[in-house]
């Protein structure tokens, strides 16, 4: 359908109707810019691509908008979703704008840049080249400085490879698609002063279509597998040529494992869960390597510190093989199972995202250590000294930016306009911090190779004695999270704050690190409002005596009971710090306010008299409040306490009112 529309527009624009299309394009751009500009998060909108360079081909032109979001908006914010919504509403009418999923990378967050993160490579390059056109607002100044670096060009080449692989196969079957890719590749080669190479590329017989006009090329088909192989080969040649210009530098990593045997590459074949699906067609050879860091900047945190990375060597044609792999993995339920794919000796990360299967190309210059690891050498690799220096500079900037984020988010949760209830996956927070610390240790000046989490903890304790106590507790906590209790339980409740403190000092290379004690105490009053439920109340108070973290005070408001409530309270007087207040009127909100005002402590935990507390209830509440100063309310889950006899009502509560029975 889109093809037909494009074909019609393309043919008609050869006639005098061209001026009509020029008007439609101008109207569409004006409308979408106006719609986007009305969103308060948008600080400026930039245009890039052939349309804005005044050489449009109607029907085919790239109308590429770059949307810059102002500093108040962070990635956690809902702005991105709203902007996608606004964009798609306009795009439905003006199809030439291109679909949003392809444009998502064009969102630039000034908040990230303010924190110190480098903007995306493609944006940096276009910014430095000065090819961006301001459509709304003011172009931000000083985002990227200096000449275009080798790493930027190489990253762009990687982006083109990714683009060819994740594009819709229907587009990839058309010659125009490949003309675009190779034109960009040639432009990159020229940018880096490889003119001879660019000329050779232009003269290649299989790329003859580069000389033909867009209109002619549009109606031709092309074999994507052959084209991708050519792209891969040429990309590799350009990258190697860039690498060969500078002196090579040999890097030796120091393995942290206690014995050398740990670092020997494991060449045994492993069995990823999806291996069975490839069993019949003998097109992939499976091997595995120990999990090494991917490059030295903290951005490729796809693999856990421990264990093995599966390497899938495609024996078939790279394009078909990868497409088949994407399809097979896409059919599986989403998981964290990422792997490396080797196609004609070029490595990719294949990663199963919630909605699609992504491929991240790893070039042999920036990720030389991964290539060395796949070749069997974990501790030594060689790379261009210039590229290594660029990598290090970028890594340092990113570590500083991450440190900034940790400092900003210490003891404070940023209030966003959307969520009503906040929650964080602790496993993810800790695991992510550890992967960042591993990447930090892998680069200069440490140059260490960490293959186990316990080694990382030992290394950090050794390096930062000031944080040793915290690190030990964190390690225990992390082990327990995965069900390994060999290091014992931890009752440390201030780990979240300590982690932030530790990270912002460690990532900026502080000489001596000071971290607060991992245990902290907040006074907690348990508030109970009761009326004529002496039996239930006794069960509740009994459960409160089993709290791992005992309550500092139990304040019971008797809302006019006439049964043995007072007797029960006296019974528990010796075992719990009980205080009782009376409120003759049966008025629950007033009773709750009475508890808040007369409680001896800052935190008031309400529990109803027909509930039973789980032993870790108060410990969890305390941990919740310690996470940040601006957490005002902490709640959890309400499970069902099954009745002595199963009944339909009991089933009802189990199914619809409570989270678990």
């Amino acid at each position, binding site marked *: 359908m889109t093809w037909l529309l494009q074909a019609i527009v393309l043919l008609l624009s050869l006639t005098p109707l061209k001026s009509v299309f020029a008007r439609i394009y101008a109207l569409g751009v004006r409308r979408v810019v106006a719609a986007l500009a009305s969103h*308060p998060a948008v600080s400026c909108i930039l245009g890039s691509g052939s349309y804005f360079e005044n050489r449009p081909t109607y029907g085919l032109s790239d109308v590429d908008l770059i949307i810059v979001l102002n500093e108040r908006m962070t990635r956690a914010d*809902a702005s991105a*979703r709203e902007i996608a*919504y606004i964009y798609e509403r306009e795009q439905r009418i003006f199809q030439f704008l291109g679909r949003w999923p392809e444009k998502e990378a064009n969102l630039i967050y000034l908040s990230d840049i303010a924190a110190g993160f480098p903007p995306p490579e493609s944006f940096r390059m276009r910014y430095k080249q000065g090819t961006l056109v301001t459509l709304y607002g003011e172009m931000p100044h000083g985002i990227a400085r200096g000449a275009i670096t080798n790493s930027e060009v190489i990253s762009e080449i990687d982006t083109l490879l990714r683009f060819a692989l994740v594009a819709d196969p229907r587009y990839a079957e058309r010659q125009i698609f490949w003309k675009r890719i190779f034109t960009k590749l040639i432009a990159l080669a020229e940018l880096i002063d490889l003119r001879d190479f660019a000329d050779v590329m232009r003269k290649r017989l299989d790329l003859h279509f580069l000389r033909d006009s867009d209109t002619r090329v549009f109606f031709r088909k092309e074999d994507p597998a052959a084209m991708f192989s050519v792209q891969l080969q040429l990309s590799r040649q350009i990258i190697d040529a860039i690498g060969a210009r500078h002196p090579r530098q040999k890097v030796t990593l120091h393995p942290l494992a206690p014995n050398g045997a740990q670092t020997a590459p494991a060449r045994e074949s492993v069995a990823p869960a999806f291996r069975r699906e490839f069993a019949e067609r003998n097109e992939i050879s499976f091997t595995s390597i120990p999990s090494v860091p991917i490059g030295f900047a903290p951005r490729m945190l796809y693999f856990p510190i421990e264990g093995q990375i599966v390497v899938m060597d495609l024996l078939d044609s790279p394009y078909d093989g990868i497409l088949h792999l994407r399809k097979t993995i896409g059919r599986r339920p989403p998981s964290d199972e990422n792997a490396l794919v080797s196609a004609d000796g070029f490595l990719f990360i294949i990663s199963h995202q919630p909605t699609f299967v992504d491929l991240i190309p790893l070039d042999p210059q920036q990720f030389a250590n991964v290539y060395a690891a796949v070749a069997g050498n974990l501790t030594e690799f060689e790379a261009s000294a210039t590229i290594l220096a660029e990598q290090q500079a970028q890594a340092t900037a990113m570590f500083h930016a991450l440190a900034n984020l940790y400092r900003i988010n210490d003891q404070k*949760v940023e*209030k966003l*306009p*959307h969520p*009503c*209830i*906040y*929650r964080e996956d*602790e496993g993810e927070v800790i695991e992510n911090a550890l992967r960042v610390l591993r990447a930090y240790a892998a680069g200069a000046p440490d140059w260490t190779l960490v293959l186990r989490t316990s080694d990382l903890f030992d290394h950090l304790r050794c390096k930062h004695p000031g944080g040793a106590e915290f690190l030990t507790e964190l390690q225990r906590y992390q082990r327990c999270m995965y069900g390994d209790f060999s290091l014992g339980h931890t009752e440390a409740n201030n780990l979240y704050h300590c982690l932030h403190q530790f990270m912002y000092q460690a990532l900026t290379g502080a000489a001596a690190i000071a971290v607060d004690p991992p245990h902290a105490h907040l006074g907690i009053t348990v508030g109970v409002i009761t009326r004529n439920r002496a039996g*239930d109340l006794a069960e509740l108070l009994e459960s409160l005596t089993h709290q791992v973290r005992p309550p500092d005070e139990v304040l019971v408001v008797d809302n006019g009971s006439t049964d043995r409530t007072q007797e029960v309270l006296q019974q528990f007087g010796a075992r719990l710090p009980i205080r009782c207040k009376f409120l003759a009127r049966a*008025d*629950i*909100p*007033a009773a*709750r*306010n009475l508890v*808040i005002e007369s409680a001896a402590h800052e*935190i*008031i*935990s*309400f*529990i*109803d008299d*027909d*509930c*039973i*507390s789980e032993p*870790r209830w108060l410990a*969890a*509440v305390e941990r*919740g409040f310690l*996470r940040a100063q*601006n*957490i*005002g*309310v*902490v*709640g*959890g*889950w*309400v*499970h*069902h*306490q099954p*009745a002595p006899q199963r*009944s*339909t*009502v*009991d*089933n009802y*509560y189990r*199914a*619809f*009112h*409570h*989270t678990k029975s």
Partner: protein
Amino acid sequence: MIIELPLFADSSRRNPAGARPIRMGFFHFSNNNLSIRRQCARDIGMYDLNATKSEDVDLCFRVATSPTWIAWREDDAVVRHKGRRTLWGLITQMWGWGLYVGYPYAKTGIHGIFLYWLNGRDHTLVGRFESGRFPVLVCAFATDFYFVNALMILLIAALCLGSWWLAVAAIVGLLWATPRYLADIGKMQMERWAKVKLAIVHYATNVAFTVAAFVGALRHRVILIPSSVFRPDITRRS
């Protein structure tokens, strides 16, 4: 149980961060497991003495809309609740909740129309019209429960009128909506007969709750078609 409320939308554009085209429903912590910092309680103005039986909804609502304080879910903070033991106790409990749930809606002071579509755990705001000059707040949550009821009424009406085509259309609609409505119960692991009884109780409580909420909200000049009871979000760290 999950009760949904529309959030404020700052249509006057005074606060740039507050003006958003997309708004989501509102979840609250139940009073039987709610901890509060005293400073927060004082800042947001303590419990509302008029918010009988919906004081927790009201409190969490004010926390969600306050500029600084936030509500946090801690996965390990767990209590066990006994609930009512008899069917009559359950129905009166739902009726009671329903009657008073309109108050926090009215208290928001918003006037306009909010339409939500609740598809499983996705809560989508279908449409919103907000205006201070509009006389009332209309808040409707479309769920499978309402579709089933509307189609049943349509079927009965069609049979009474003798319109066979309409009846066939209603039956086709029911064949689509009923399995969706019963999907939560279908996933439960219990005998067939127990499931049937559960479906009946579920339907009865839904009727009690939605009717009570509709009637109760009218007292506060709010036209409320509340979310029927569906399975709460049970995705948590294992």
